């Protein structure tokens, strides 16, 4: 009996000891009390981020990075949201299209406009996370999509490259179809087409629209705003050049068809180039055709997610967060990101991209000529889902363009 009591006593003491030491560790922010602990929530996993953190800690021995990860995008947003509301906010985290409006509106992100590390960030990357003239994140790279084409199949229609204008593109599709080649394929099952966003970028450039002001417009009318671009894009379907089955075709299906040489052109981004290259095809990647001659060429594209600093940060933690962002903008970190395949847009950094991506990189990424609808309107998560469903119905032919635009605008108007 006494032995039992003794064991109970030892177990209780051990339990309390473990609890106290764990709580102590939380309070001190690390084993070494002299270090400042910087909490960082990323949507890249530890395998990707560990080299950056190790290098940063080596360069800043007084700072320890407490890394945590949540995969993109809905899981990451929900994790961050829970931590912010539960007073467990990370010191540095990712701000992106889907959460930037909520983070800025609720005052969770620090204004970085005048920070020294923002000086060489490209304007398009700043615009992505700007509101009322203030910049809330540091984005160092961007992507742009384009038309990936099979050179051998294009040759069957006597073409060597993708035409520069949309009318030329439609003519090429007709020729390819006449030659018995499936001209073009895209996926509407995984998301709306990439083409209308590219056209809309050119359209806004022509109309001198300040895209950063779109988010404050009331009511929000992305459907009406994109109607002209969508009408041009729908010619593909109205003229029977592309199968309406695209509403049930996944991105993987589309890529497989292209790799197997069953379709001449697809619309995608640089992430698909490695697997297409491995298939041994003779292929190229061209910028998106122009909606109308004389417009400035835009692609569907976006700056990569940005690093943000928690707005309530003070003292050593704030200094550590600034140092971390300065490090992520340093040559070592940018080179590492470029080696990982990111197209760096930081001014003064000589980026090297895949040869096939070079043309799109020079035409769209470098000058910041890319546009992604959801980056510039309020409630992008609502916009993404409603646009996808309505676009599928548009392609199926069950609604017309006016109904499509109205359905999107009505949905946006119903959301606060």
């Amino acid at each position, binding site marked *: 009996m006494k032995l039992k009591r003794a064991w109970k006593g030892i177990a209780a003491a051990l339990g309390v000891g473990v609890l106290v030491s764990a709580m102590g560790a939380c309070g001190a922010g690390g084993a070494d009390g002299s270090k400042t602990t910087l909490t960082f929530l990323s949507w890249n996993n530890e395998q990707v981020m560990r080299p950056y953190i190790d290098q940063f800690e080596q360069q800043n021995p007084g700072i320890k990075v407490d890394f945590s990860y949540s995969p993109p995008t*809905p899981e990451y947003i*929900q994790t961050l949201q829970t931590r912010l509301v539960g007073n467990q906010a990370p010191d540095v985290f990712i701000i992106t299209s889907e959460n930037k409006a909520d983070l800025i*509106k609720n005052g969770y992100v620090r204004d970085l406009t005048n920070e020294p590390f923002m000086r060489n960030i490209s304007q398009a990357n700043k615009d992505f996370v700007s509101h009322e003239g203030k910049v809330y994140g540091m984005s160092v790279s961007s992507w742009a999509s384009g038309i990936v084409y099979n050179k051998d199949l294009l040759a069957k229609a006597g073409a060597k490259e993708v035409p520069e204008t949309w009318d030329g593109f439609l003519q090429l599709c007709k020729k390819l179809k006449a030659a018995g080649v499936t001209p073009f394929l895209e996926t509407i099952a995984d998301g709306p087409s990439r083409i209308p966003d590219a056209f809309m970028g050119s359209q806004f450039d022509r109309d001198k629209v300040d895209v950063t002001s779109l988010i404050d417009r009331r009511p929000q009318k992305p459907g009406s705003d994109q109607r002209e671009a969508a009408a041009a894009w729908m010619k593909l379907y109205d003229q029977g050049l592309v199968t309406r*089955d695209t*509403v*049930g075709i996944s991105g993987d*299906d589309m890529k497989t068809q292209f790799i197997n040489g*069953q379709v001449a052109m697809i619309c995608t981004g640089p992430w698909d180039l490695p697997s297409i290259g491995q298939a041994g095809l003779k292929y190229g990647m061209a910028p998106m055709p122009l909606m109308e001659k004389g417009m400035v060429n835009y692609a569907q594209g976006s700056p990569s997610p940005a690093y943000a600093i928690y707005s309530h940060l003070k003292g050593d933690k704030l200094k550590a967060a600034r140092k971390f962002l300065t490090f992520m903008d340093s040559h070592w970190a940018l080179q590492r990101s470029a080696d990982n395949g990111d197209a760096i847009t930081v001014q003064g950094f000589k980026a090297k991209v895949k040869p096939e991506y070079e043309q799109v990189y020079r035409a769209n990424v470098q000058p910041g000529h890319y546009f992604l609808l959801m980056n510039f309107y309020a409630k992008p998560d609502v916009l993404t889902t*409603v646009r996808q*469903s309505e676009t599928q119905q548009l392609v199926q032919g069950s609604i017309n363009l006016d109904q499509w635009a109205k359905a999107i605008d009505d949905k946006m108007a119903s959301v606060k």
Partner: protein
Amino acid sequence: MASQSSAERANAHRRRMVGLRQDLTSFWFLLPILAVFVILFAVPLVQTIIYSVTDFNGYSLNMHYVGWKNYHSVFTDSSTMQGLVFTILYAVAQTVLVTIFAIPLAVTLNRKFWGRNFARSLFFFFSVPSLAIMGMVWKYIFSPMKSGVFNTILGVFGLGPVPWLSNSTLARCCVIFIAVWAQIGWHATLYLAFLQSIPGDLYEQATVDGATRRQQFVHITLPQLIPGIVTSSFLLMSGGLKVYDLPYTMTKGGPGYSTYTVTQSIIQQGIGQSQYGLGSALAVLFTVATALVVFAQMGAASLISRRFQ
């Protein structure tokens, strides 16, 4: 006399104390599950009801009372209404079809034939992988491209490709087909257990009386299976109303809203779009509607059971 009544009182007191101790013991055994119920069900349910009358957005705890506004929005949102239509269609269709196919399958698997155990395992195996994985695999099988598995097979017979997942009606049929295909084996196993509890002498007597197999099925097997049908259809209906994984992984609710479900709407609007108030209102309404449907189904099943008793 007085001492007798005081002894009775003492006895009654002792019995009450013993009863109380037993109740207390039962309470301690029930405490863990009660705690789980309160923490994981009761508290979130109350929170959901509270959020449903506020404008809580998930980012700020400074929420405001908005009355019935969220409930009004639920009924004016066309996507939610379309989701409701498909959810009801899915739940009813899978309940009816699984029941229609699982009973004959169970009767067949209950007979003696070579490879019976293998056949039972095979049909049961369909229900082992999660419906989310099934959805991803069948997405490729039902691809509307010529290279899709079914379309390749049709091509061998000289038939053109069928737009399985790009046609709204066909997409709905495909989702329901997979749900039925995946669940038949599990429900047949459930019916098998009920079939094995039917006394064999009922069939022997019927055979002596000259009843055909069909007559035996209609007049013995089916009435004896009523408790099984009640259990199976209850599980199918309640599971069908809550469906999310299969349509989402196969079609993401498309084309358009043709395979959109109420649960997808709750998750998408509530969590994905940070409209917790609206999502909560939808969840509350859906919980009430599901409870009504399930109670109605249980009432109907009970009436039918009594008819066959």
